[in-house]
């Protein structure tokens, strides 16, 4: 992209279809990658136009996993949508729960007890660690290292999922947060187990880095590949580790101070080049920062109730109004927009999914690269199809 001096220039550059001219005499090949392709993390299709190995055009095709989430939620009680949010980004059900609970709490002006806030932070950061670990594992898997890093990540993720199961009853579909707190209280034994797991996490990240960060194959495959420029990232409303890897300092935990994040010391890791390697590094560093937050939060979990005693579960009817609650989910900004007309069901329920919006710049990142790199670039976006299609 050239210099974007005026808004008109920016719009023109934005609307212009990216053009890469073919080289030589050969014919162009149109290839449909997916929807059942091992590299697509689910059912997602890319229509790729190739000149030999080079990508000239790429059209992402969404919608194979559309399940009508928003419309279902508009016909169901507020609480009944909570288990459905688990199924958006099924790697991070607890952050999804939190975002939805936050939106509803904003809508009704519900306060959350201190202890519940701490539990939410602990669970969200555990979710972030396990999401980033497995995201990196999948990325390396797509590079051809079939198994080892992914299995190391899953070994660690398993410990965290065990914690989730012993607290919420389910490993992935946690359905744990409620409007005004959390469903059940944590026990002292659970906190001890969490401290133990968190105490071992730095060792795991060290091991992961020892395995990968200096690896020449990883560097050769990822450095300078799939570069996302900061101005395009901002224009396309990219969020999360992808945006920060492009060097834009924007973390909703720092910007919004939702929950109790202003009480914790942590830094926001930023990338420099916006390539796949930076996205990988940003995720590794974010894991370390999350571990830092976890250590601080676990030190000082206060007593008290986990649920506002005035909050009600049945007969929940918010006053007419609208609210947008957003959090920094592991994949980016996850927001829920709700309009209430005073009924038991939301009049409008809208999800702002980070996965879908981060995926919109896929073509810009892939143009001119080889097909093998498309798989890698796609992997570095870190999406879950449950959230892309909803």
């Amino acid at each position, binding site marked *: 992209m050239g210099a974007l001096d005026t808004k008109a220039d920016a719009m023109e550059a934005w609307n212009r279809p990216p053009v890469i001219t073919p080289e030589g005499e050969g014919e162009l090949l149109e290839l449909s990658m997916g929807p059942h392709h091992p590299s697509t993390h689910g059912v997602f299709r890319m229509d790729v136009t190739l000149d030999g190995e080079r990508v000239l055009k790429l059209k992402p095709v969404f919608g194979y996993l559309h399940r009508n989430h928003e419309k279902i939620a508009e016909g169901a009680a507020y609480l009944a949508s*909570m288990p459905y949010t688990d199924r958006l980004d099924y790697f991070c059900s607890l952050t999804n729960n939190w975002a939805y609970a936050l939106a509803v709490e904003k809508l009704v002006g519900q306060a959350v007890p201190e202890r519940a806030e701490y539990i939410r932070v602990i669970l969200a950061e555990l979710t972030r660690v396990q999401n980033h670990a497995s995201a990196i594992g999948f990325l390396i898997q797509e590079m051809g290292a079939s198994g080892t890093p992914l299995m190391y990540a899953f*070994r660690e993720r398993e410990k965290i999922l*065990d914690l989730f*199961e012993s607290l919420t*009853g389910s490993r992935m579909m946690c359905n744990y947060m409620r409007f005004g707190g959390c469903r059940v209280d944590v026990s002292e034994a659970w906190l001890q187990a969490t401290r133990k797991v968190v105490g071992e996490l730095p060792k795991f990240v060290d091991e992961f880095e020892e*395995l990968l960060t200096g690896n*020449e194959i990883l560097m050769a495959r990822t*450095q300078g590949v799939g570069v996302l420029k900061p101005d395009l990232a901002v224009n396309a409303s990219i969020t999360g580790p992808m945006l920060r890897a492009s060097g834009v300092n924007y973390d909703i935990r720092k910007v919004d101070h939702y929950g109790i994040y202003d009480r914790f010391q942590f830094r926001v890791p930023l990338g420099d080049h916006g390539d796949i390697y930076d996205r990988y590094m940003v995720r590794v560093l974010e894991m370390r920062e999350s571990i830092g937050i976890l250590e601080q939060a676990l030190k000082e979990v206060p007593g008290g109730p986990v649920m506002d005693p005035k909050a009600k*579960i049945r007969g929940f009817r918010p006053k007419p109004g609208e609210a947008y609650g957003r959090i920094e989910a592991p994949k980016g900004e996850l927001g829920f927009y709700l309009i209430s007309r005073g009924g038991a069901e939301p009049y409008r329920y809208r999800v702002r999914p980070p996965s879908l919006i981060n995926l919109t710049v896929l073509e810009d990142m892939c143009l001119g690269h080889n097909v093998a790199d498309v798989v890698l670039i796609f992997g570095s976006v870190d999406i879950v199809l449950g959230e892309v299609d909803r």
Partner: protein
Amino acid sequence: MNSEDFLLGEGILKGLKETARNALGSFVSEERLTTVQYPEQRIPTAENARVFPFLVYDGSDWQAGLRCVACQICEKECPPKCIYIEKSKDKKPDHVGKMQIYPAKFDIDVSVCMSCQICVEVCPFEAIKMDTQFELATADRFGGLLLDREQLAKSNEYYHQIHPTEASEVDARLAAEKAAAEAKAKAAAAAAAAKAAAPAAPKPAAPAATAPPTEKIPASPTAEKEGDAR
């Protein structure tokens, strides 16, 4: 990448060392063995684990002891609407001795159920709880996964077995309720006796002393109060 700065391949060797350490470590330390041979070996399920709901009954006869009073709150609140209840025409006494209707039909389609536990949360009668049984594969896709009330009914002892802490809390709560109900009944009986002794009162407050109407359970004051408290 500048190959003069470092030995090319150093990073790969470092990574291989890590892999080797992990692979060999599994022969030395038990902790590194993270998986089990599933059908033969099993990891015990977590106490809070939840799979599909079941109906709790007290005593030995499931039909007599079923706690469910067919109030249909769970049917209404269930997000995927997998519960189907038909009320009975007659009544039977519940755990506090109050005459209640019972479910003539209570079906849960576990192929639709998403194990969200909302039915458990909204139930004011501690009648529906989550099971931990997950090996439910069946060859019959429709009938085999549609559980009726006989298949769903599990004893309170079974509930204690799978969720000991939670079941004890529930028992304590129910015992307190029962004691309160008995005390109330006693007081009411005493009041009724006193009123009967006084000849001036033609009609004592008998309806309040005996069982209140049970047809409108969701709107009944106790049900509403308990549901909100949760």
